[in-house]
Each structure stands twice: as C-alpha cells, then as structure tokens.
C-alpha cells in the first residue's frame, strides 16, 4: 500500500503531505511558545518594583548567538537550493555549516552562558533592611533618577558553605559592579558590555535576606522564565541539529541517488522547522537580553 502525495503535490491543494504536516506542527509550536511568552508578559507586568531584574545577561554573547542562528537559517536555505539544482556536494557543504552553527549555539548556551549564571549569587534583602544596605543599593540615587529600586546584592559567594550551614549567619559576597558602585550613573541602566566584578566584599546578614539563591530558576520569576524558555528552545535546537545530521550522513547520499526530490523535501521540512526555531530566538533575545 502506498500513501499518495508523499513527494508529489496533490493537484488541487498544490502541496505534498509533509509540508502541510510541518506547518500544522509549527502552528502548535507557536501556541506552545505563545503560552510561555504570555506567562512572561503576565509575570513581568505583575512583578513588584525591583523584582524583575535587568541587565543580568551577557548582551554581546547573546548578539553573537543571534547572528549565528540567523546565519544558519540562510545556509539551510542554500543547502536546499543546492539540492534543487542537484548539486550534492554543495548541499553537503552548506548543510555542514548549518549543523556547525547549531552546535556552536548550543555550546555557547550550555557550556558558557548557563554555567556562569549557576555560579553567580544573589541575596534579596527584606524590605525592612533595605535602608541598612543602602551603601550597596543606592536606592535614594535611583529614586531621584526615576528608576526602579535595587533589592538585591549580588556577586560571587565567597563562603558557599553558608548556603547549607545554619550556624554561619552571614553571606560574604564579592560584589558585582552595580552593588560596588551603586551611585555610578553607568550602573543605572543595563549595559551592553558587562562590567567586571569588583574586589569589594560585602557581609550580608542572613536575618536581612528574604531569599538567597544562585542564579538558577528558583532565583526569580525572571530566571524561571529565562531558563524554561531557553531550555525548551535549546531542546528544539538540539532536535533540529539531530535531524540535520541525519540528513547529512551517508544515508542522504543513498536517498539522493534514489529520489533526490524526496531528500529536497525532507530538507525543506527540516528547514522550515529550523526557521521557526530561529524565530523563537528572535523573540527570546530582545525580551530577555535587551528589555
């Protein structure tokens, strides 16, 4: 038994099956990420002043990753076009670059961006103690400028034992630039190039801390949405890369000899998926890195 229209288009719809299938799948993906992004909007609008941190992500790295993904969206089209023109070695070349881009993106995300966050520490100060830590927070200065208050002291945790040991009553934090020089106007707004960490160490009493957490999902609704959305996006990138590798391996050469159009169709479907993954990132980047 043969299923009709797997490679050739049905005359009245003008489409072959998998093309409809992938568009439908993408529609559902839009709703999936739509649900997550609406959670982002909901939570951000609801956040108390100072509780939606900004400027915690590395913008140049994010920009680079954005460029990599956009480039890969171009190369996947070139790969498909090469197949359509029946230039197989060119196809292999462009597909290879696409795969490489996907892998670089993932490595940057998983081996650099995420771990660096996991090793960063923040202590949210209780409302009652904000005044006490004013030298690190500079809220009077921020209020003057019309900015949201700072409620967190962050940096490198010098005594990580404090996280588990009840008998240690203080966190020793090697400060981020913003807490080291809270009055410096450069620190009022997020910066493009991340400022280097200072050498100053602050001692923060546990009694004054509402929530102490590494920069993990638990830290805030900001990081909760960031890790959830980029995690799910990363899974999509991984899925795309795996499919591309499959379409690049020797099996593709065999399929190309037998039925080049079918290979082209497969690349087209996978490419549509890849564009979608790219598109999601185009939303992630400004929402989390820039705004």
């Amino acid at each position, binding site marked *: *038994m043969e299923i009709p229209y797997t490679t050739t288009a049905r005359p009245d719809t003008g489409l072959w099956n998998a093309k409809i299938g992938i568009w*439908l799948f993408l529609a559902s993906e839009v709703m999936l990420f739509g649900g997550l992004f609406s959670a982002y909007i*909901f*939570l951000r609008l609801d*956040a*108390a002043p100072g509780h939606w941190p900004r400027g915690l992500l590395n913008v140049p790295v994010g920009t680079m990753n954005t460029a990599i993904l956009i480039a890969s969206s171009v190369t996947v089209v070139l790969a498909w076009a090469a197949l359509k023109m029946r230039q197989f070695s060119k196809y292999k070349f462009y597909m290879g670059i696409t795969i490489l881009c996907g892998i670089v993106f993932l490595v940057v995300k998983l081996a650099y961006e995420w771990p660096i966050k996991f090793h960063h520490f923040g202590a949210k100060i209780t409302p009652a103690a904000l005044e006490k830590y004013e030298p690190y927070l500079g809220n009077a200065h921020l209020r003057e400028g019309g900015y949201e208050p700072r409620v967190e002291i962050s940096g490198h945790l010098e005594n990580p034992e404090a996280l588990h040991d009840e008998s240690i009553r203080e966190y020793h934090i090697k400060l981020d630039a913003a807490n080291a020089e809270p009055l410096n106007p450069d620190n009022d707004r997020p910066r493009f190039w991340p400022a280097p960490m200072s050498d100053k160490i602050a001692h923060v009493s546990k009694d004054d801390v509402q929530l102490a957490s590494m920069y993990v999902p638990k830290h805030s*609704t900001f990081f909760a949405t960031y890790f959830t959305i980029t995690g799910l996006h990363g899974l999509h990138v991984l899925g795309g890369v795996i499919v591309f590798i499959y379409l690049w391996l020797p099996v593709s050469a065999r399929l190309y000899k037998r039925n080049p159009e079918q290979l082209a169709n497969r690349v087209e479907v996978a490419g549509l998926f890849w564009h979608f993954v790219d598109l999601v990132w185009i939303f992630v980047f400004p929402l989390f890195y820039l705004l």
Partner: protein
Amino acid sequence: MDPSADLTSHAPAAHDPHHHDEHGHDHHELGWWRKYVFSTDHKVIGIQYLITGLIFLFLGFTLMMLMRWQLAYPGKALPVLGPMLNVLFGRGSMPEGIMAPDFYNSLGAMHGTIMIFLGVVPVAFAAFGNYVVPLQIGAPDMTFPKINMASYWAFFVGGIIMLISFFVPGGAAKSGWTAYTPLSVIADSGPGHHIIMNGQTLWLIGFVFLITSSLLGAVNFITTIIQLRAKGLTWMRLPFFVWAQFITAFLLLLAFPPLEAAAVMQLMDRLAATSFFMPTGLVVSGAALNISGGGSPILWQHLFWFLGHPEVYVLILPAMGIVAEILANNTRKPLWGYKSLVFAALVLGFLSFIVWAHHMWLTGMGTVVSAFFQTTTLIISIPSVIILSAFFISLWGGSIRFNTPMLFATAFLPMFGIGGLTGIPLAFNAADIYLHDTYYVIAHFHYIVAPGTIFALFAGVYFWFPKATGRMMSEFWGKVHFWPSLICMNVIFLPMFLQGMLSIHRRWYDGGQGWALSNEKVWGLSGFEWNVPISIAAWVMGLAQIPFIINFFWSIKYGKKVNDNPWEATTLEWAAPSPPPHGNFAVVPTAHRGPYEYSLPGRERDFTMQNEPIRDSDRRAYEAAAAAHD
C-alpha cells in the same frame, strides 16, 4: 469498470476471493506484533484506542462509584470492598473501610482526568477518527502512519503513568482535574514524598505524554483530510462526521500546547522550586515558603482554561458528528441544513478559543474582562443551538428506524439540550456567583458529556461495529443496555441541579451533610439525602454496562454475519469490505455526490451511495429540489 461493482452491499463477491489473497499475503510479511500491537494501520490503531479508551472509561466510572458511597453515607465503612481497597491502595486510603479525605480527593481528581483525557478524547477523537475518517474520505490510510502509531503509544505511556500514580506514597493527584495552583504545587511535596514518584508530578508528566499524543494525532488528521480525500470528494461533500473531526483536530492542535507550557511551568515549580504560579508571601502550615514568589495563580487558570474550554468542544464535536451520521441513516433522509451545520461547527470551533475565562468569574478578573467573556459565551450558544435545531428538524417527517444506534443518538439530543441550556445561567456572571463550584455545574457538564457524548460514543460503537467485524451486535442486548442507562443517567444528574441550587459544593467530602441549607427538603428528601438515590442509580448504571461488555465481545465471534453495508448507508466507508483489509478499498472510490442522498426521487432504493455515478434521473431530482427551494 462496472460502476455498481463497488456498491458492495449487493456484490459481496466482487472483492472476495482475490482480495483476501492479497490481504493474507500482506499479513505474512508482518509478524503478529507488527500486525496487532505495533501496527501502523489506522484501523488497528483505531481499535487499540477504542479498547484502551473504553477500559479507561470504565475505570474512571469505577472511581466515581466509590466516591458515591462516601457521598451517600459519609464516614460509614464500605462493607467488604472497603477493607480490600485499603489493601490494594494501601497507606490508609480506606482504613477499616472508611474513605480517607485524601483518598476521596484522589478519586475525584483522577475520575475527571481519566474520563476526559484517557476516556472520552481517545474514544471520540482518536478511536472513531482513526477508524472512520480515512474510510469515509476514501483514503488508504492516514498520511503519516508511523506518527499515528507513535500517537497511540504516547497515549498509552501517559495512561500507564497516570495509573502508576495511584500506587506511589501519598497516592494519586488530589487537586482536581483542573490542578489549580498553588494547591497543586504544594500537594504531594515535602517530607515523605519522592521528588518524581508522587501523585501530582506523575500527573504532570503523564499529561505531557497525553498532549504529545493529541498533537501527533491532530497533525495527522488534518493532513489526511486535506490530502487524501477521494476524487470528487469536495469539501461540501464530506460527511458531517469528517468535518467534526477536522475541527476537533484544530482545537487539539492549538489549545493543548499552552497547557503543555503550563504543565512544564508547574513541573518547574515542583521540581526546581520556581514561582511561576506561587504568589509572594505564601504561608503553608504556618511557615513561609522558601521561594522567590512573584508568581500568579491566576496565570495557571488562564492557561488551563485556554485549553479547558476548547477541550469541552473536543468532547462534544465528534459526538455531534457521530449523531449526525446515525440520524441521517435512520431517518432515511438527508441531514437537514448540512451547510448550516458545517458553518455552525466552524464558528463554534473558532469561538471556543475566546470564551475560556467564563470558568473564572470568581477570580476577580475585573468587570471589563468579565463582560467580554460573558458576551462571547452567550454568542457561542448560537451555533450550538443551530446544530441542535438542525438535528431535531432532521427527525421531522422521517420514517425513523429505532435500532440501538438510533436510540442512543436520539437520546443524545434532549440530553445535550438540557446540558447546553443549563450552561446559559452559568454564562451570566451574576448568576454564576451562586452556582459556581456547586453540583449545578457538575450537572450542567455531565448532561453534555455523559448522557450526551458517551451515549453518542455507544451509538457509534453499535453503528460501526459491523464495519469493523463484519458482524452485528445484538439488538436485544443493545436495548437492555440503552433503557437502564438512560434512566440511570437522569436519576443521577437531574437531582444534582437541585443540590447545586441548595449550594452544595462540588468538592465537599461529606456530601453536604454539615451544611445547613442542604437540610431543606425538596420533593421529600433533603439536599443531602438526595445523594442516596443518586448513588444507587450510579451503581445500577455500572451494572447496566455489563450487557454492553458481553454483547461487544460475544458479537465479535458470534454476532450475526452481515454484508458490507448492513445499515444501507450512503457514505464511503460502507463501500469498503467489512472488515476493510490493509489499504482499505478493493477499488479506489470516486465520489459523485453529497454524503446523505437518502430517498433520492427516481431511485429504486432509498439510499444512493456517494460513489454511485450521477444518472439522468438524479439530475432531474436535483433540478426539482432546487426549483422547490426557489
């Protein structure tokens, strides 16, 4: 080829010897496992869905029969069975036969979950859709048979995870089928609970599988209907059932993913201690939680009901499709207002995405939001009324055959009517303030889903059984199944309106015993005492399903053998052999006409199949009908 050769009802020999050879040959290549278990044939998958779904339906019903004991006789030991259940479910679920509150809550949550997501959706959409849609559109199979198989197995795994959750420490999920946060995030967590192997976490993980399954199914259905329609089967010639499944597939495709997002976020709240749905300053058992806060419980409700409301149309649309087929077939006349039906269903599908917050009147969303959703909810009643009216009018002047499928299909109409009409008071937020979360709401939606949808599913089983097996189910036992079920359904759900108006809360563990208003007598019984007849009817209804179960299995082997088109129906599935072989049609059918050409003037028989070519007499009949219409 001779056009009448594929009118199989009169030509059983046309496909026989040659065909069965091919059929047998196919099967030699596939081993038993590939043929019956890991099959990619839409019919096998449909039957797998049907059997699994029916088992889950019965299981879900059993949970409710247990709850009905506690509601009728709160705090009394359940004789014999109670202590046995305590051994089965353990951990003090029913100590000395008395139902513990947590166990009661688990039963309630899992009843809803199992009935909707493991029972009705798999049977209504996946089972009937898989079995019937490709046949009705004259296709050899689904467009993506392997994805189809994956869809079933994702469903199966999801179901198994849900079942396993009954036996982990703490028992199955207990925060309602709606899993409202923050209750559901706190439930089954903390000391004594495994981080993964606990009720609520397994519930969420199970859900992710179920959602994946629906997604794969939905993509497959829509693509199949667009791409694999037989030659000549234009959109307005599709049977209404196909339309219903098409729209349902879109609802599943677009409404489920936000719930998947929500499930992932709730999982994060449980596993990574995030605060998506956890508000600032939450205090549990006297201690502030060590979380960031800043989350929103209402966000969960929005995401849940964004799925939840379209989901209720997922439950009802396939049922309407089944009823439409059976009504046309047994009134022996075309379905009244086919085009209006199709457009009403499309509008219904579209509107179902913008009414969800009518489940949330009491959350304090604000009057503007409430006014918007109240308006859309009232508007969505219009297409529902159009569909129901068209069905009723279809009965008018027909020479109705009351066989078992038709009995169930006819009963669907008033039952759905009651359910729909009682939804209107809920749609007004002023009225709903009193009725929200009472048994009135339970009665409202059960009238639609239980004597409505589930009756339609029974109708569908009786109706398509001969296609799948080549044999009929017993009419006599069908009627023995029907009448007690109809009576019990009404004894169960009608008094619940009453209880709801006495404001008996839907989640109370004591059946309303401790509530002053429920001591008021209505028709001789107090609101609380009404629980007794309700519960008895529920148990009798359980018994009334036995004839069905026996009839079903007995008829597979011993039912009366029939030809390929025993109901003398018009749609294409009846042009295939019974049971259809792998690949379905001996001759690829071409459609020449609409789906319901019953009693076409100038024809010697009172049904004209879609694949019969147009004759001169047909043309004259169409012209006469058009002239009469002008």
